């Protein structure tokens, strides 16, 4: 137990704000795309803004608009959003442990603002300083949230000005964006095999059944391959020995 008092929540919050700076530039364009895509897919400004306020999860927001644009049934959209955001379950398990102990209200607030960047920066902070305070996480995550909302609003404005999405390449912006996101995971175990399996299954189902079944089919195929190729971790092996 440390005798020194923990740094004040306010100072921690400001450190989180400071550390968010390098990521503002990667959040903003993504928000622009989401806002513009929402309008292009037939959404209104209010619904598009509300989505960013409540989701704060760009990849799933894009998927929602793509499927909504294809007139997919509600359950398919819900399932797709759930699948794309499933990584948040793992993020939440990982970061909740670092933030504990916290009153429930503060924990729920922290988890609501959790996404890819705040997870990565938060875990790094916990490594460096030995702890992750609520203040630091909230400082970092709130800046990203505000930037996200501002970018969505600008995107909505642009979206209603765009008459021909092809003329500015908006139709390819989303696929390129996701391809690059996938590439960010290339150092993960079996990433290339998982990606290839998903792509092949996705293409087959896309030809055979059409959209939106290709999303679930590719996703499940990739996950199944990952499960088949997985090797027990050291702690699993030790647990099995006992």
């Amino acid at each position, binding site marked *: 137990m440390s005798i020194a008092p923990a740094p004040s929540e306010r100072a921690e919050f400001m450190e989180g704000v400071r550390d968010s700076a390098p990521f503002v530039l*990667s959040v903003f364009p993504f928000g622009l795309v989401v806002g513009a895509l929402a309008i292009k897919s037939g959404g*209104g*400004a*209010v*619904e598009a803004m509300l*989505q960013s306020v*409540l989701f704060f999860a760009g990849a*799933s*927001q*894009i*998927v*929602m608009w793509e499927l909504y644009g294809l007139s997919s049934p509600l359950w398919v*959209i819900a399932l797709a*959003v*759930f*699948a*794309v*955001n499933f990584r948040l*379950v793992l*993020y939440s*398990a990982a970061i*909740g*442990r670092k933030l504990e102990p916290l009153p429930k209200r503060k924990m*729920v607030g922290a*988890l*609501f603002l959790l996404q890819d960047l705040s997870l990565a920066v938060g875990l790094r902070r916990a490594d460096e300083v030995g702890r992750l305070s609520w203040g630091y996480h909230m400082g970092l995550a709130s800046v990203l949230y505000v930037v996200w909302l501002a970018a969505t609003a600008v995107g*909505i404005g642009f979206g209603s000005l765009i008459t021909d999405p092809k003329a500015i*390449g908006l*139709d*390819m912006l989303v*696929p*390129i964006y996701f*391809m*690059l*996101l996938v*590439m*960010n*995971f290339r150092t*993960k175990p*079996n*990433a290339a095999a*998982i*990606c290839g*399996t*998903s*792509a092949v299954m*996705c293409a087959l189902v*896309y*030809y055979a059944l059409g959209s939106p079944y*290709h*999303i679930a089919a*590719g*996703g499940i195929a990739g*996950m*199944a391959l*990952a*499960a088949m190729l*997985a090797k027990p971790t050291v*702690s699993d092996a030790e*647990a099995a020995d006992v």
Partner: protein
Amino acid sequence: MFEQLDWYLMLVVLVGSAVTLVNRLAGHYILARFEPIPYRVEAALEAVPVAVMTTLVVPAAINGAFPEWVALAVAFVLGLRLHFLIAVLGGITVLLLMRQAGL
């Protein structure tokens, strides 16, 4: 832009955000209580971003023609070394140039 609210779309947004919130809370309040997670389940969950996001790229490659393929290829090569944003801009720039040229 601010015409009559679309109530079905509002429902879609609310259901989607509820599902997302469940994901965010379930990890800490449910999954973290059931450790250790079987390693095959963990590997499958970790594969979700790659497995799912790939399916959002494939249709564009299937439906695309030469300019779209080149745009993806350029973004891929730039993405191996350079910042994310440069790769996006590079791919889109090449795409627009090729469309302008009528390829």
